């Protein structure tokens, strides 16, 4: 019964119902604390979608979530649950900072590729160790990636306090990046500036994120490596029969996954804060899990889910600003979406199965 859902229902309805359930429970929570769900929703919609300025924020968050969401799905397709996006993103930020601070960059077009390389390399390196330990030493990748989130956070603190902090500065942060490495925001881009008339955080990284969606799709469904990743993820036993190396697939998938998580830092570290701060990723690594689950493991789905979560994050911030509802509402919704799409999916399917069964009986 559970597996008999039509494909479209599985792809479209399951995430949708999960979202509705999450929204419903959030609304109940709001009612319980005496807030108005309607007010919350209107505030969110106006604050996140109502004006180009609002979109400038929503798209900024979307950009980050696309990267971390893609990071999660690449690993997922190889049958690996990479929970370490947070640490990999922060390490990516360190890579960006080191590159940006290394030379007085003359122009962002030169700084960007170099910083991307730094971000990807550092992020990949931070994923490589758990991957290696999983495939060669049998350590559970979920646990090691969690541990690496914390080790990474500690490493960043050390780097910021002891290495990167300019003399005389109090707060643990790197120096500001040279102006030549600052990325243009949508407001500063010709053409887009007509829409985004005010300064917004969304920047050129958005286009890199969209490109990354396409590239990940190409990787997974058009290349030999992607073929091997997907085959290994579906059945490691069959993959051995086909001569697909578990070591190679695990390492490559995790390196790409880590690199994608690392690349997120281009958006926030290089594009927005323009210096490295503590906890730069601000939970985006974890939101990637929700985005991947919601997006049904497909890059296009990730794009849509990242938009949704961008809306949720910007909307949540607006709620925090303009209503008495705390900004943390968005974390609740995020958690509930993960819960319903990732852990209670069988329950959602069974609920849907009840809806679909009578119709089938009539048809028969």
């Amino acid at each position, binding site marked *: 019964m559970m597996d008999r859902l039509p494909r479209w229902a599985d792809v479209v309805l399951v995430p949708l119902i999960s979202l509705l359930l999450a929204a419903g429970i959030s609304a109940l929570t709001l009612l319980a604390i005496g807030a108005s769900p309607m007010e919350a929703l209107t505030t969110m919609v106006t604050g996140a979608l109502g004006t180009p300025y609002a979109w400038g924020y929503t798209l900024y968050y979307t950009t980050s979530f696309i990267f971390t969401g893609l990071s999660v799905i690449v690993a997922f397709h190889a049958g690996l649950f990479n929970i370490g996006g947070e640490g990999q993103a922060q390490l990516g930020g360190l890579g960006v900072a080191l590159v940006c601070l290394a030379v007085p960059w003359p122009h962002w077009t030169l700084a960007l590729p170099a910083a991307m390389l730094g971000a990807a390399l550092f992020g990949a390196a931070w994923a490589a160790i758990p991957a290696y330990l999983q495939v060669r030493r049998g350590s559970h990748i979920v646990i090691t990636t969690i541990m690496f989130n914390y080790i990474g956070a500690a490493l960043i603190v050390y780097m910021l306090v002891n290495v990167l902090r300019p003399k005389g500065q109090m707060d643990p942060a790197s120096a500001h990046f040279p102006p030549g490495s600052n990325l243009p925001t949508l407001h500063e881009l010709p053409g887009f500036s007509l829409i985004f008339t005010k300064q917004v955080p969304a920047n050129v990284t958005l286009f890199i994120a969209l490109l990354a969606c396409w590239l990940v799709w190409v990787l997974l469904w058009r*290349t030999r490596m992607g073929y091997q990743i997907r085959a290994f993820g579906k059945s490691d036993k069959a993959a051995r029969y086909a001569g697909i190396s578990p070591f190679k697939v695990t390492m490559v998938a995790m390196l790409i996954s880590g690199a994608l998580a690392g690349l997120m830092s281009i958006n926030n570290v290089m594009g927005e804060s323009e210096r490295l701060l503590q906890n730069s990723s601000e939970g985006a690594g974890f939101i990637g899990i929700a985005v991947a689950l919601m997006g049904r493991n497909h890059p296009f789905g990730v794009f849509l889910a990242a938009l949704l979560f961008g809306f949720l994050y910007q909307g949540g911030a607006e709620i925090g600003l303009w209503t008495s509802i705390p900004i943390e509402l968005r974390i609740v919704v995020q958690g509930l979406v993960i819960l319903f799409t990732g852990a209670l999916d069988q329950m959602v399917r069974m609920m849907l199965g009840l809806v679909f069964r009578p119709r089938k009986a009539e048809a028969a």
Partner: protein
Amino acid sequence: MSVDTETGRRATAAPPSGDVPPAIELRGISKAFGSVQANKDIDILVARGTIHGIIGENGAGKSTLMSILYGFYKADKGEIFIGGKLTTIPDSQSAIRAGIGMVFQHFKLVQNFTVLENVILGAEEGRLLAPSLAKARKVLAELAAEYELDVDPDALVQDLSVGLQQRVEILKALYRHADILILDEPTGVLTPDEADHLFRILQGLKDQGKTIVMITHKLREIMEITDNVSVMRRGTMVATVKTAETSPEDLAELMVGRKVLMHVPKGPANPGKVVLEVENLAVRDEHKVERLRGISLQIRAGEILGIAGVAGNGQSELLAVLGGFANGTGKIRVNGVELDLTGRHSDGQSRRAQGIAHVPEDRQSLGLIMDFTAWENMAFGYHNAPEYQKNWLLMDNDALRADTDKKMATYDIRPPIATLAAKNFSGGNQQKIVVAREMERNPDLLLIGQPTRGVDIGAIEFIHKQIIALRDAGKAILLVSVELDEIMSIADRIAVMFDGRIMGERDPATTNERELGLLMAGMGEASAAPTKGAA
């Protein structure tokens, strides 16, 4: 009481009052899994205090029947009488209460528990362990003395040999006061010494009045220790006879049945040069148990060597080593070139590059990715093939699809939709996808395991024709099958495997099912020698 007159002493005499009722009586048991009828209207009568064997080929329905008896499945139809009383057995707890103990083929033991802990698990005396452990220690000592069931009660199960672990399972059942002990393929994992010991234990249990039901496919064991034997074939109970009044030959025939041989048009083989040479190949599994014990064989171009045998006697390991996804020791040469058997310099890819194609025994877990489309599966294992590449990076999916369409037409795969997921094809068409993929690579050596398992008649005929066509094209073919018909109708030579060894080789033209059945049951060494001389 309806009684099968062949069953035995107690059964033949209609039970008058005061007589002991049979330990087990099943009436009209039927059980279907989806469209597969695993048990069809089964009647069986097991007399108290006897050892009753149940034999049959794989998939004959023996284990299903016993699982019904142990409350793992619910029968669709039929009645169970235990000790003459109508009994319903909805779960294992009820089976235990009815005095039934079961020793599964795969033991249900907690590896890092001691023997004592395993024995009392679920049968504790009270909330605290100490009294239960003390009691169990005493009972175990008694049982050990009585039935040669010695096991160190404080040893961890993971440190015990398989034979000892089995003893723990028996102890578990006896500790729960089982009067009826069911053993599913008990000797499958035992060394001959361990098996002998087990038989002594079973004999002792029988002498104490316990009833033992033993499921096996090994004729020798049946002859050695059972009092009565029931033969199952394709979900039905074919016969129940007294062991003393039958012979291995008769049982083999009952077991295999006299099936009409399908006619496969086939000319004589034209063996050419030697393609595959295997010398003294040995394989150990992850538990260090020897699964292949020194296999040697040769296959020439243009001939089909059929490997007959009951499943689980090393055939899968042989295929896995040849296919490059298991390691072994010994020597394998293909076209004179030695293969790496360590896995360090070889895998499924290198084997394919050396001209070996492989239709694996289990298409669903090995040969196909069930969620992949037909066209994606058509490249499985050949994803590096140059004709499927657009450039250094991208695969040429269009070429792959076109290729798939062509193969789907040639092999009459239905529905001919390349974008359909493998799981949505019928078993026969799934198999055709694998066969098409492997055969169209034009390999020098084709490994093909259980080519027609779960495949409909039409597809069987088609696949057989393809195999013979490939032979006639001068390829060497290693065919592994548990279906004797299949082996006899298409192989040019037949080697029988038993317990990791090749028991003997036969010419399909001169051998018969009875002879092969005996070899398959491990009873052929004596007769194997002369034929070898003759061949």
